[in-house]
């Protein structure tokens, strides 16, 4: 199966065919505003059996999905493309440190002292690290 077939076979991938390429996802995408990233083009390329680019740039803010007029689950589809890509080619090198962070702290992004100081100023509780994720990872087959 190629990428498109794998997506359509997945329960989360059914909405791929909804897209009519209106660009509302890309127009509101915060990553697209500062880079050449283009979620509409990812969906469109998959539809045409072409290799999508920049799939790792999505910040998972879900604005695209919220606004999509055809109820295409853009962000979910991009996550699905990532999962399929990892299954096929393994994890890209630059993702590995993020996974390591997740294991040790419970967050992909390291939260430093600076961040917590700022939160204190805003009367927000400090973010504490957790080893819950580590436990989950150890109990599942993921290593």
């Amino acid at each position, binding site marked *: 199966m190629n990428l498109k077939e794998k997506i359509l076979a997945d329960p989360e991938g059914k909405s791929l065919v909804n897209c009519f390429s209106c660009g509302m996802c890309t127009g509101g995408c915060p990553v697209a505003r500062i880079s050449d990233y*283009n979620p509409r083009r990812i969906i469109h390329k998959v539809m045409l059996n072409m290799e999508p680019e920049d799939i790792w740039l999505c910040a998972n803010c879900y604005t695209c999905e919220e*606004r999509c007029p055809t109820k295409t689950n853009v962000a979910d589809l991009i996550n699905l493309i990532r999962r399929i890509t990892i299954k096929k080619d393994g994890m890209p090198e630059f993702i590995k440190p993020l996974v390591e962070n997740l294991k040790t702290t419970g967050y992909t992004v390291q939260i430093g002292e600076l961040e917590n100081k700022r939160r204190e100023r805003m009367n927000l509780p400090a973010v504490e690290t957790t080893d819950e994720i580590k436990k989950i990872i150890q109990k599942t087959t993921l290593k």
Partner: protein
Amino acid sequence: MKVFICDCNGEIDIPQNLDFGDGVVVKTSSKLCSEEGKELIANSIKKNEKIVIAGCTPRIAEKFFAEFNPEYVNIREHVAYPGHADGKIRDLIKGAVEKVRISDETSTGGFEIKNKSALIIGGGVAGLETARQVASAGFKTYLIEKEPFLGGTIAKLDRLYPEGMPNSHTLYPLINEVVRDKNIEILVNSELKEISGEIGNYRATIRTRGKVIEDCDLCGKCKEVCPVTVDDDGIERKAIYYRATHPDSYGIDFENCTGCGKCAKVCDKIKLDETEIELDVGSIILATGMKEYDARMIKEYGYGKYKNVFTKLEFERKFANRLINPKKVVIVLCAGSRDENHLPYCSRVCCLLGLKEAKLIKDTDPEVDVYVTYIDLRSYGDFENLYTTVRETCGVNFIQGRPSEIVEKGDKLLIRTEDILLGKTIELDTDCVVLITGSVPDYELLEKLGIPSDGEFPVDYVNSSLSVDSNPRGIFVCGAAAFPKPVAESISEARDVAVTVINLLNKERVDMKTPVADINGDICSEVGCKICLDICPSGAIYSDGGIKVDPSMCMGCGVCTAACASGANQLIGYDDKGLLAQIENTVKEGDILAFLCKWSSYNAADKAGYEKLKYPENTKIIRIPCTGRVDAQIILKAFSCGVKGILIAGCPPDGCHYVSGNLRAKKRILATKELVEQLGIAPDSLRIEWIGTEESKKLVDILNEMDKGGNQ
């Protein structure tokens, strides 16, 4: 009962010594469709006697014998042409005879057209034109308008597309003719409260607020004292105001009037009281026009939050009145349209309205920078010229892409969108944004008139209410109330409806076109399952204490009869006992029984006859209105009579004459397959297929396959 058999000029070999039991007289003819043949029928039957006509296909026979309301047997296309032996003729006629013998009365009812008058709801172009046409044919016409003035949406516009003609060109002559016609009674500030009755004899209760001010000299004192200021699609006015259409007096906007009475104190001609009148009419026409989708619902575009985001009507009125002078304008097409979160459909005219606004701006001030954002630009037909003009002559910029959000930045607005052709996100700053929103149906009135809409425009109803095979109802929808459309199309649709109304009012009586379902209230109330209520594709079944069928809405598909849990619901002409008797007397051990939809697959079988295609002689075909009529009881009966295969065939998935009867049939047959399997019958011997009128080869292939396949 009499059976008339026609050998179609000797084309059919009719078996000798046909005997169909007690009280059945058989008469033969060589050309039953001739005048002599019809005389033979007319002279030999008693009043209301049931008859069977065997000969050519009912597609042809219905042209000649509809007045006798017979049961048709097709012995030409389904027996003689495919070269089947004449014993099949005997079986087919026998089945029809026994069906007719046991069935209830099949004659269809009718309605008297008592009131030679029409009620038209809505005083816009569609309503005005319908009124003009119906009244000019000599019928009393009542035209009611919710607002204080005639003219509808276009009275508020600066110009009409495609040429940009002022609205007065269309509206003023139309209003003049309507006002002059003595057959037309105009009631402004009036709404339909309720209706009762049936076609030809409706009673409408109309609520009228206030009274048209007589001999108003437009002095405007009333306006000065009125404390209520209203934003009328971009223009500020008082709750009492004047619009240059009709009537030629100040009028009160009762939607916003607080009833303080200050105007009545300065002018004793002003009346605020409410009156109710009852009108007896033969027909009702809904022409309530355009209703704009509420742009506030599209949160990311900030309408209602940012003062320079306008709807199309507001912008046009403000711009034409020089209330705004933007240097740069972005026109957003498809605002909330083709959107599952808002309006899933395309309102068809919005692209053109957007182009019109662009041209309006450029015509007024060519220096203004105009951008149009679009998903697909649908300038259908001749409107491509408008698109070309706006692009080439006016120099408007087009950006393909649906804006994702609009934010305020200083005194400017910032639009974030992808330019799909560049494949990049862009930000446009602008002085103002025009949202070209779509239209929504008038749910409330549709419901009052018993027109099913399911939250969308009543497209199915509009198509069927003008079609030749639906039962007469006398309630029509035209203009933008039926579906958003341009002014010219609204006017021509108004004429279509007017012709139908005039034809109707010219008659003393109209007959039902198709037999309808009938519910036995005693049996139904014992079970009260209400399954039929939800599945009727025409919205003809309603609950009124008991469950009832509105015969004027019923299209006669039989989906409800098949679904009825108690046998209380019976489609006249295709009732359970009739069909069961027909099956029992038609089929023999080892036959294949085919239930073919009269709109598609039955015609495919006729075509197989014309093409002399070979298919098994033991195929017996029963004509049904829709595959949705077939239920488990009928299938089990056929199997118990020893058939080796059952084919149910009808129109392609989205092409059902009754919207969804075929899809219901598919579900039902798949469930019945499981049932027959439990009874030890091979599920493959029960098949449901889509076979269109042209697909005779597909039909024949399936029948041949079934004949070879099943033998249990």
